[in-house]
């Protein structure tokens, strides 16, 4: 199956119809990312332990269309959370999905909530 960028569209908090119970917090590394499967999507979930926040985005890097973003280093640039793709270090804002150090298409971001030590990711369907 060849990955398709159309599969991924940003979902805002207000647009969430399904809160998918992905996995317990313990499955996610501290200050890093892991990948979850939801229907036909691969979603990267990031645990910014230091800041106490969580983000989620598509696992598909739009540069060469590989499913690797969850394996990248997280960080911040001018106070905005970001992830750097492990292949070529293209950085993406985890708030807006924008490619910060280049002009690639923005990636899709999804809301995350934690309830009873479980990680939930919000989808529109």
């Amino acid at each position, binding site marked *: *199956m*060849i*990955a398709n960028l159309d599969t991924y569209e940003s979902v805002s908090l207000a647009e969430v119809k399904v809160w998918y119970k*992905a*996995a317990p917090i313990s*499955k*996610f*590394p*501290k*200050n*890093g990312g*892991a*990948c*979850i*499967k939801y229907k036909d999507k*691969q979603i990267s979930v990031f645990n*910014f332990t*230091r*800041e106490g926040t969580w983000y989620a985005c598509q696992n*598909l890097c739009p540069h*060469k*269309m*590989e*499913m*690797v973003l969850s*394996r*990248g*280093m*997280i*960080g*911040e*640039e*001018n*106070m905005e959370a*970001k992830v*750097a793709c*492990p*292949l070529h*270090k293209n*950085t993406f804002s985890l708030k807006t999905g924008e490619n910060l150090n280049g002009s690639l298409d923005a990636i899709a971001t999804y809301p995350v909530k934690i309830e009873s030590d479980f990680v939930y990711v919000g989808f529109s369907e």
Partner: protein
Amino acid sequence: MGMKTIIVVGNGMVGYKFCEKFAAREESKHFKLIVFGEEPRAAYDRVHLSEFFENRDAKALEMAPLEWYADNDIELIVNERVTDIHRSKKTITTASEKEFIYDYLVLATGSAPFVPPIQGVEKKGVFVYRTIEDLEAMLSYAEEIKKSKPDGKAAILGGGLLGLEAGKAVMDMGLEPHVVEFAPKLMPRQLDARSSNVLQLTLESIGISIHTGKATNSIMGNGAITGMDFGEDDKLDVDMLVISAGIRPRDELGKTCNLEMGVRGGIVVNDKMQTSDPTIFAIGEVALYNQMIYGLVAPGYEMAEVAVNQILEQSDVVMKSEIDMSTKLKLIGVDVASFGIPYMPAEKGLSIIYENKTKGIYKRINVSHDGKTLLGGIMVGDAEDYSILHQMYLNNMPLPDNAEELIVGSRGEGGSAFGNAMDLPDTAVICSCEAVTKGDVCCSVLDNGNETIKDVAKATKATTGCGGCKPMVTDLIKESLKTLGKTVKERLCEHFDYSRQELFDLAKLKGITDYDTLLDEVGSGNGCEVCKPAVAAIFASLYNETANKQETIQDSNDRYLANIQRNGTYSVVPRVAGGEITPKQLMAIGRIAQKYDLYTKITGGQRIDMFGAKLHELPMIWEELIAEGFETGQAYGKSLRTVKSCVGSTWCRYGMDESVSFAIEIEHRYKGIRSPHKFKGGVSGCIRECAEARGKDFGFIAVEGGWNVYLGGNGGATPKHALLLAEKVDKETAIKYVDRFIMFYIKTAQPLQRTAPWLEKLEGGITYLQNVVINDSLGIVDELDAEMQALVDSYVCEWKEAVETPEIRARYTHFVNSEETDNNIEFVSLREQKMPKEWA
């Protein structure tokens, strides 16, 4: 009043520059700007056309994306040729018979390649070199040729600037290039006979054949070209011909509407860039100014600037009468520069020439008779001094008494012959492509707070054209910051205001062992992908912790202890110290590779690499390898990689000592040591050097009575040979010296700095290093020895650690909520093995 309309005919580099400069002006909002381009694409960088061969990316050459035109309210109509100008009605008509009204017309139609009327020039396989479409046609023809003739040849007609660029393009296409030039020398306008010879020697040494003094009579072949005939039985067999024998202005529009034309073509303009009709301007290669057509982009840009100002009624901005035709370019890796009057008869001035054919260098400066003024110059092979000499020429700066020092270098003690860039007057134009002066650059730093090349480039546009002024702009920024009392500090990133060496010392001093604590105590913010791996390496060097401990601050490869490949699978490399392996070990690797269907290849480091392992398979593969007695080869780390060996005295009839044993011993000593960048060793059993030890960060060569020790060699993009540290020392001493060298490098290098650039930057170089490591000039060898021994004693195989620790093993899964694996990975077959499907 209403809006006035400006129509620009031509969307090449100069046509685009007009739009860019116009859009940047406040007053542009009172005008409507419509641009017509004949080519099917928006303006692109024709100067760097040959880059298209490297990456086939036309978009990368775009001057600006289509959105830029829309964002600036410019209507760009591509693929539409303007066919007529009706001056009385002030309208133009296009090829699709549409009519447009103008208040001002700017003709930037450029030129077309000149095709000499040689018999047979219409045959198949003959191309011109100007547009991306030309290049695409050449590429597909070349592919056709290579199918039947892998050693196909192509000729380039014309050995000027463009012809030599086309020569490189032909080489990149895989054909054998032959440059054919009518004049007796190459680049006849820029070079003299001697520099042309030097350039020819260098080009021939890289495989470009040069034929000067040749007039082509006819092109041979039946339908398609098979060769060129120069008369008197002088022939050249070729399969393709690229014509770049000059340009002719695209002045048809001027002719048909009766504008004043030059005798040999071109639309006549005054110093305001106006044609004989004051509402019609002409700029770029179509304009005839002072009886000349200027085929360089910098004068074209100046013309665009003048036209913009004239239309906006700034009538004092006019074209200078003296146009600077200086050029500096990098042709196929050879620097060629020419400025002022490159060559002249003796009545005009005298020349100082430095020619070194062994190095392919030629430098010439022409000096006035009284020795005070620089009239011009030529540089081939080394044009480092071009910027400053060009400035001296443009600003009429007085020459030093020993003018020859300008090209030979000062032979007295200290001081450069030139002074530095700060000595130039503020009006000196540093960047001629974008007309940025020294004053502009310094102001940008001093008044507007720009401190990096990136910010200054954004603010002033300097370095965004050909990039030739970058060294000078960098110097100006540094010097300007100095006057403000700010030194250019090497800091890691926005999160740590320290150099790597400072951070290393701080972490050690404060005994900090994790990243978050380091951020809290000496950093700010929350970190990023630049400082995390650098700090990870520092912790590794201080505490010899493996990459398993703080896995989320590790770089791409260390994170999973494997080299990530382009499709998200990984490669597996067990250690094969010194390149020595037993048949049993070979078969174990073979069995495991077959079991997991991995692609195998022997590496330059004399070991075996297995590709195509999916993330979840890594612990299983390594478990089997460890069971067979292997350990991690750490091919993924910024660490020791391998110690290469030649066969040495154990088997070789020339071997003076046991290079394999020594290499194995050393590789086991330094395995696991992480460093600012990867480092590699080599051990050769005699001076024939089959292990290429002098290309390594550290190398040993066996000689009569001991070992020679070499340090600081690197391969890679800028290869460097290692330098001799000590001769004829015994093995224990040799090891001690390298121990100290490695520790000293680890403590003082910048992030991702290899030993060669580190040694080059080390004040005092190899002599200083000898003093530190052999004579203990800094009094630190005991400390270095102890630190090295601590690392050696605490070695752990990180894959064994990972395999035996369930929570580390658990990291190796594609999904954390499913046992499924990534179904996005596709392989195709390649020569009995497999490879990832090609990227689109």
